[in-house]
């Protein structure tokens, strides 16, 4: 037995690199092919020992397990060889998975139909083995074994060589690491993780019990190991979690007698589920520790994204939402993107998760009293509501939700999405045949829910979303009312106290067509108050304007108008107030601080698109915008001017503003004189004014503005047939603001410097310099300075000369000495020449 085991053990196969598994099996294949004679023997020996081994060491040490795994692979390979016809590599989609520790796993799925269970197969083969075994004598056996060993060694070497060639650096690195025992332990754990993960990926059904082990590993003390464990578990789960929800068998069902395969599946599922649960618990626990937070959140998010249909999604979702307004930006981004993908890929989970998520977020907002990061509400923007569903609901039971004006863009978006989903699915189908059935179930699950149910869910979602929005609005209202007392003396940099208002308004604008009519009145009132920036509460408090930024107020106006437009004036709300506010907001606008896009949009929606303008108001706006464009940068001025042009084109009578005929106008308003400081457009008496601004604007530094201004000023009351300019203020704004950055590249090629009038070429320069040209130098001083300079120079020269001389004499003395020495041999030693002390003293200081 012992001998046999030795044979079977692959002696010097480095187990670290999973690639080897493949290589080994290939080599084996080749080897066995070459020596057909041994084939039967080998296989028989092999299987026998292994079956015994497996049964014996099922719960042995870890290292042993590893070996077992190795062996099994080898055996599988052998089996492949043996039953060449029956060989099936069924999953070709196995792309290598790269985990964080830099290893590449190959999914070498060797799962075949029959040989799922090693014990079964082993048992089946035992019969053959018995037959073959008897014939062999001991001696023969020994000889063959020796040969086997040699072969195996050779193979090992080859493999090792190949490996060295492949990754020499890695090998060296590995060697270095082996010196350190701690490192070694770490490495071994890492390897084990890799092995286990690989095994699971290779054959999840038979290796399902490894899951528990992996979960165990991830509870290690070493941080890195924990992280690695979590991540590899993530990879495994992502892959093996089925496309359906696992329902644990009830007691009754457990009692029932079932077939072997069913039992196996049950075992598989329950193990999977329990370890999944353990894993999740671990994740949720770790998520609270700052050290592991990022990793845990990442795992949670990607699990949720990959398997939103699977069991325990509630806890996942909960954890995600909890972190949605985390202060850590990376975590927040992860969570938000996960939620967004949940919203956009509703097909995966049939919309249930959407409802849950929206609910949770709503609760979260409530719990935090609207003090969260704006991102957390921004996710609502990626929600998409199925128009048709809502519609059918309307017909059936007079639903509250209203959408007469269906937004085409959105519906097309939705259809696009579903098409995409379909395509994805079809690809999946093609790839994995074995999953066909599951796939069908999946489809049924995602598409089947009847209309009623879906509508129900959608209604729920909507109500949750709007609940959140209204909560935010109300909160804002409250805080505005409370603020004046709270902070006296608004500071120069207002800390944004209402982080959620901005996304909330955005969302309201986007879903304005879905808003319940009952809420509409309330909403409008809220918006009105918000827009006015509480200035109606009393102008005495001067900080009032600080309560909401100009952008936010503008946005309120915009939302109100969008709501009205989308509902086709089903409500009888007076929008005059909003005009009034816009009229005043324009003056408070600052280019750097506020969002110019919003302003341009407001111009577009409120002024250009409005159908029922009365003249007085229009004139007032024209005047105000022209004035406004005198004070701001080019982009904003352009937007304003485009609006002015638009208004003037539409309202013929307002063109009287362009003419200077005092009192003689046919349309002199009730107010005879223009009051520029009036806050009400209707009372400003703008019709009596003249657009003198255009003259100044035509001197504007920006060529586009100046041409536009002169174009407007040359419009006359006479010709009505002017072509309506296509460009909207938004567009103009965008162009101009982009201009600000890109104009330089455009103008690079052109620009010839044409000179109007060339002045006299020799432009005498009357500058500081020339005044000093003739400034007489002090002769004496200069002379003395120069003298001193030259004397110094002379001194230096003299010095150099002396030194040279000194050197020369010293050299000659030396030569003389040498000469004397040479002569010495014949004569007696004479007196040595003295060193030239005297000469040395000559040296100047």
């Amino acid at each position, binding site marked *: 037995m012992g001998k046999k085991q030795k044979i079977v053990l692959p002696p010097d196969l480095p187990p670290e690199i999973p690639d080897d598994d493949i290589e080994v099996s290939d080599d084996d294949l080749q080897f066995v092919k070459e020596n057909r004679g041994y084939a039967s023997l080998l296989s028989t020996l092999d299987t026998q020992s292994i079956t015994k081994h497996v049964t014996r060491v099922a719960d042995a040490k870890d290292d042993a397990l590893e070996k077992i795994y190795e062996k099994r692979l080898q055996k599988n390979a052998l089996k492949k060889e043996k039953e060449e016809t029956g060989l099936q590599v069924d999953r070709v989609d196995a792309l290598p998975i790269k985990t964080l520790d830099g290893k590449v796993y190959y999914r070498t799925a060797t799962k075949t139909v029959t040989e799922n269970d090693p014990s079964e197969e082993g048992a089946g083969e035992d019969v053959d083995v018995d037959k073959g075994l008897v014939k062999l004598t001991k001696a023969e056996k020994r000889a063959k074994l020796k040969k086997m060993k040699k072969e195996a060694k050779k193979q090992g070497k080859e493999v090792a060589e190949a490996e060295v060639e492949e990754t020499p650096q890695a090998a060296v690195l590995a060697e270095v690491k082996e010196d350190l025992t701690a490192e070694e332990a770490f490495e071994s754990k890492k390897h084990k993780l890799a092995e286990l993960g690989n095994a699971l990926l290779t054959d999840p059904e038979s290796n399902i019990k490894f899951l528990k082990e992996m979960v165990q590993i991830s509870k290690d003390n070493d941080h890195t190991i924990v992280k690695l464990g979590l991540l590899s578990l993530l990879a495994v789960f992502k892959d093996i979690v089925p496309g359906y929800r696992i329902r644990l068998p009830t007691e009754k069902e457990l009692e029932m007698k079932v077939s072997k395969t069913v039992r196996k599946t049950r075992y598989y599922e329950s193990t999977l589920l329990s370890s999944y649960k353990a894993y999740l618990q671990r994740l949720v626990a770790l998520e609270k520790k700052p050290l592991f937070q990022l990793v845990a959140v990442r795992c949670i998010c990607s699990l949720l994204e990959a398997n939103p249909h699977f069991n325990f999604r509630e806890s996942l979702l909960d954890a995600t939402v909890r972190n949605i307004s985390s202060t850590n930006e990376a975590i927040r981004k992860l969570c938000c993107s996960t939620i967004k993908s949940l919203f956009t890929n509703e097909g995966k989970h049939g919309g249930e998760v959407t409802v849950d998520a929206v609910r949770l977020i709503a609760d979260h907002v409530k719990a935090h009293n609207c003090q969260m990061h704006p991102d957390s509400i921004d996710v609502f923007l990626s929600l998409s509501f199925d128009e048709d569903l809502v519609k059918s609901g309307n017909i059936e039971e007079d639903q509250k939700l209203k959408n007469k004006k269906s937004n085409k863009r959105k519906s097309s978006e939705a259809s696009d999405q579903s098409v995409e989903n379909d395509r994805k699915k079809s690809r999946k189908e093609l790839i994995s045949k074995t999953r066909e059935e599951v796939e069908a179930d999946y489809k049924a699950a995602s598409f089947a829910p009847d209309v009623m149910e879906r509508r129900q869910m959608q209604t729920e979602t909507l109500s949750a979303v709007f609940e959140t929005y209204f909560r935010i609005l109300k909160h804002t209202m409250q805080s505005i009312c409370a603020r004046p007392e709270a902070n006296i003396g608004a500071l120069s940099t207002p800390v944004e106290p209402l982080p959620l208002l901005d996304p909330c308004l955005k969302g309201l604008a986007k879903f304005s067509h879905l808003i319940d009519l009952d809420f509409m009145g309330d909403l409008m009132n809220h918006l009105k108050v918000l827009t006015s920036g509480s200035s109606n509460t009393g102008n005495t408090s001067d900080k009032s304007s600080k309560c909401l930024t100009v952008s936010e107020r503008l946005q309120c106006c915009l939302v109100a108008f969008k709501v009205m437009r989308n509902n086709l004036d089903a409500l009888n709300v007076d929008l005059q107030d909003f005009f009034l506010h816009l009229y005043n907001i324009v003056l408070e606008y600052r280019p750097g*601080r506020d969002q110019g896009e919003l302003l341009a949009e407001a111009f577009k929606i409120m002024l250009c698109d409005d159908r029922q303008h009365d003249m007085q108001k229009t004139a007032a706006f024209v005047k105000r915008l022209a004035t406004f464009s005198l*004070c701001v940068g080019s982009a904003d001025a352009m937007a304003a001017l485009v609006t002015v042009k638009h208004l003037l084109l539409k309202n013929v009578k307002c063109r009287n503003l362009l003419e200077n005929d005092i009192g003689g106008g046919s349309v002199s308003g009730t107010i005879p004189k223009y009051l520029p400081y009036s806050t009400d457009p209707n009372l400003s008496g703008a019709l009596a004014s003249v657009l003198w601004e255009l003259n100044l604007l035509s001197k504007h*530094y920006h060529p586009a503005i100046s041409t536009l201004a002169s174009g407007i000023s040359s419009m006359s009351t006479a010709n009505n047939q002017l072509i309506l300019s296509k460009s909207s203020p938004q567009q103009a704004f965008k162009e101009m603001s982009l201009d600000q950055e890109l104009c*330089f590249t455009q103008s690079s090629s052109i620009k010839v410097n044409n000179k109007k009038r060339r002045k006299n070429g020799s432009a005498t320069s009357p500058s500081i310099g020339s005044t000093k040209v003739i400034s007489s130098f002090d002769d004496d001083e200069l002379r003395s300075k120069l003298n001193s300079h030259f004397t110094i120079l002379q001194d230096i020269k003299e010095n150099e000369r002396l030194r040279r001389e000194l050197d020369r004499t010293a050299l000659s003395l030396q030569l003389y000495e040498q000469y004397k020495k040479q002569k010495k041999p014949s004569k007696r030693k004479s007196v040595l020449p003295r060193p030239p002390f005297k000469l040395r003293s000559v040296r100047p200081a």
Partner: protein
Amino acid sequence: MFMLHEADTTFRRLLGISTSSSRKESVLELKNTTKWLSLRPLIKSYIRSTVFLLNQVTDCEILAFSICRLRASIIFLSAFPSLLRNLLKISVHLWATGVGSLSSQAFLIIQDIASVFSSNWFDVCFIKTYNAFISHSQFVERKFEHIHFLRNSFVELCCLDMHKSSNRARICIMHLGKILQKGWQTKKKRSIAEENFLIEVVKTICSWQYINCIDLWVKFISANIDDFDLQPLLYMIVQIINGVALLFPGPRYLPLRLRCIQWLNHLSGSSGVFIPVTSLVLDVLEYKITKDSGKHGKIVQPMSTIKLPKHWLKSRDFQEECVSSAIEFLSEHFAQWSYHISFPELATAPLIHLKKVFERTSIESFRRVIKRFIDQVEMNIDFVQKKREEVPFSPKDQQSVESFLQVEKRSGNTPFTQYYKSIMSKAASRKLISDRKV
């Protein structure tokens, strides 16, 4: 000494060139004569030794004197281009580093080289001086006069050949624009990875080098826009300045912003083009509404820094500075257009805002200044409006609009002009005082 004094005249006499003429053609003509041949080595050695002297000596006066003498005989240099190059190198160095008259003398040499010799030499001069200017504006924190001098002299140099220099200016301004563009783009993206890069870009823009470059070109444009058509350049630089002003919000960058406004006013004043600055000025006013902590910090000279240290923000001096400079700039802006027919409209929005500010501030000195300004502007509005009601033409009649109130403008004694003058003189005296304190 004697050599330096007399060499030029001697050579000239020998060669028969009149002392006043400085045309290189005469030298080139002489090249072939026998007289030249005989004198050539002598002149060459003279010039070479003088240039050598320039390299050796460090004393200012000697340098200035010898440069001055060399300048007198600069026409001879046309015969020795390599010596000329040496001389240029030295004089650019002296120009950038020297002080007082030496620097100006050196500049005169450069100017002469650029003007007397061919256009290639102008290019060389331009590039060398520009580089020197940039590298010196980098770390000179206190020597503003010198930088100013460098700037002015460089602009003068540019004036020698407008055609070339404006083309070069366009390239340089475009470069500035590109840097700024980068800054904007990174600001918009706002991702973490870019944060470092953003800081880097901000550092580039928010450095003296950048500021001085803009300053240089502003000066250049405003000096020449009357005579030449520099409209595209003006447009580009205005866009850049606006971009810089808006790129750095926040009170710490107020000096930078004030500087931007100053530039814009300057440009607008010299070119007669309308450049709106009101919103920028009003922004400045916005910041100062903070409660005054009453701390009297060091004397702040906002023009001398780009970014303020934080502790100055709350100081009374700083706020005072803000208010007064805002009013100054605004009145400068208004004064320019005070005779324009649309002055009332121009002043409307700022007035509304100023009135609000007036209501908000509690400090008496600020209130007084603002009040006075408001009153003056309103007076002028009334004045223009009254005049305007009498005119028969419409806004589309550009020519008659141009002639509107021109007579009054020439006489220049409307109350607002006088007010503006008083404001400016006050500002000047204030600056003097603060300078003295520093």
